[in-house]
């Protein structure tokens, strides 16, 4: 079984976000870059599928600048066979242009399963899997928490409000991984050493026209200062009032 995983390198979720000088994106200084956590589930799923069928190849594809090779290398250390970097100096492309770049590459590749994370934890768009699927005219199941492949059909569980949908689809197909899909493995040192010898193909890529335009990035209003509302049950009415009118959460 041939599996392609689309992976994005993102700032670590603990990173302190500083707004860049352009006022529209983050300041990349002091950022720790990691493999998008949802994409790790996708990579793990791909590896397990390959291990189950005992044949095929897991290819990791990413769009980004040179720095993204370290993220691809991490996936190779987990066990993916090779990587492709669609290299662009515009690391913050919009979803549509990135999906186009991916689709252009994927059109030339043969695969049974195309995996994504359900969203990247940087811009949290959750769009690219469906965009690529449409561009390749493939079915797509998002927020997958369980995936079973049998022959050329797949059964995917997806979490929705109030329950789980079990979706059946034919292969090739696109899936976007949700958190509970599996437990991503920790790359062994053996894996890291082997990954050094695996191939990462870099392809210079021009992103197409953007469909959206970010005009401003700003800090959210600061977290309300924590305070002790009061003591014992007497404080409850005031807490209710705060939750209702200040926090607007109930």
């Amino acid at each position, binding site marked *: 079984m041939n599996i392609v995983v689309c992976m994005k390198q993102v700032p670590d979720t603990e*990173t*302190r976000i500083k707004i860049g000088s352009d006022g529209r994106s983050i300041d990349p200084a002091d950022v720790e870059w990691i493999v998008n956590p949802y994409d790790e589930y996708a990579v793990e799923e791909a590896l397990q599928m390959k291990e189950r069928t005992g044949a095929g190849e897991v290819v990791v594809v990413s769009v980004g600048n040179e720095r993204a090779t370290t993220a691809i290398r991490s996936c190779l250390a987990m066990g993916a066979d090779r990587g492709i970097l669609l290299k662009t100096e515009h690391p913050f492309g919009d979803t549509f242009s990135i999906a186009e770049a991916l689709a252009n590459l994927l059109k030339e590749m043969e695969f049974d399963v195309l995996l994504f994370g359900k969203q990247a934890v940087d*811009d949290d768009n959750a769009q690219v899997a*469906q965009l690529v699927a449409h561009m390749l005219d493939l*079915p797509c199941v998002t927020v997958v928490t369980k995936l079973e492949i049998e022959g050329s059909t797949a059964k995917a569980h997806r979490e929705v409000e109030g*329950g789980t949908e079990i979706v*059946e689809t034919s292969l090739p197909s696109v899936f976007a991984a949700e958190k509970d899909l599996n437990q991503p493995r920790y790359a062994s040192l053996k894996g890291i050493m082997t990954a050094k010898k695996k191939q990462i193909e870099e392809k210079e890529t021009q992103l197409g026209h953007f469909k959206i*335009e970010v005009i401003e990035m700003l800090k959210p209003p600061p977290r309300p200062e924590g305070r002790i509302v009061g*003591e014992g049950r007497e404080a409850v009415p005031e807490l209710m009032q705060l939750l209702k009118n200040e926090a607007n959460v*109930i």
Partner: protein
Amino acid sequence: MANGVLVFAEQRDGVFRGPAFEALTQGRRLAGQLGTDLSAAVLGSGIAGTVEVLKEYGVDAVFVADSEHLARYTTEGYADVFSKIVREKNPSIVLMPASSLGRDLAPRVAAHLETGLITECTALEISDGRLLGTRPVYAGKALIKTFVKTDPQMATLRPKVFSAETISESKETHVEQVDVTTGAERIRAKVIEFQSSGGDRPELTEADIIVSGGRGMGNADSFNVIEDLADALGAAVGASRSAVDAGWRPHPDQVGQTGKTVSPSLYIACGISGAIQHLAGMSSSKYIVAINKNPDAPIFKVATYGIVGDLFEVVPALTEEVKKLQAA
């Protein structure tokens, strides 16, 4: 020339969902600002009679796609039909709820229409005649303001951020059946089964509100005060590591370093001292309420609101207040 605001009015089993009304309310406001019409699209099977309720939200037109292929949501079927409606009606703005369905469907529709999409908006406004969406990025650590450069301008609305408001005066609404030609054979991914999650409580990681108990609960039975509050709020129940270790709650309920990482809009920590292992799993919650008898407990450092006191007094009182509020 594109014109008008079209809202995807999500329904399931003939019942419209809250996020659909929230989107309609925003659509109406935006349409008002632009001086154009608000319309709604409804997809489903046997739903003709259900669209009446949409009139209360001031829609000028409702486009109904009624077909047995649309009885159950499929990405491909819905995307085909809905994008066909959009092409035909040519609105300048398309709004959808960022529900499970909306999050799945909207990007596929955007791909059909080759247009831009702003997902999970928390604010919408009109600027220079164009839609300007505000949305959180980096898990809420920053916000971006975004235009869509192409038409139609698509956006999804994060549930529960916007309010749903009906209009007082009645309005003439034009209801139109649309031609549905999508063949079942073009739908490759189909829902073959739906497993209801049984309990009415939401998943921990997806819950909007979580009520958690810790060592202070004392035993497994006292978790019923937590459950009562959770049920009153429609919240999930969580637990700290020490409560799970003590065997009072199952491991899947554990929030923290070695359990689940959650970021609900409201996290109510009861009898949880706030050990760092626990904070690692929940400190990104939007609002945190701490109820603990020890005023020096570290949980108060991260809590938005704290009550120092016995949780067995405070929590039931809180449950009462919540029920009172809902009854009102």
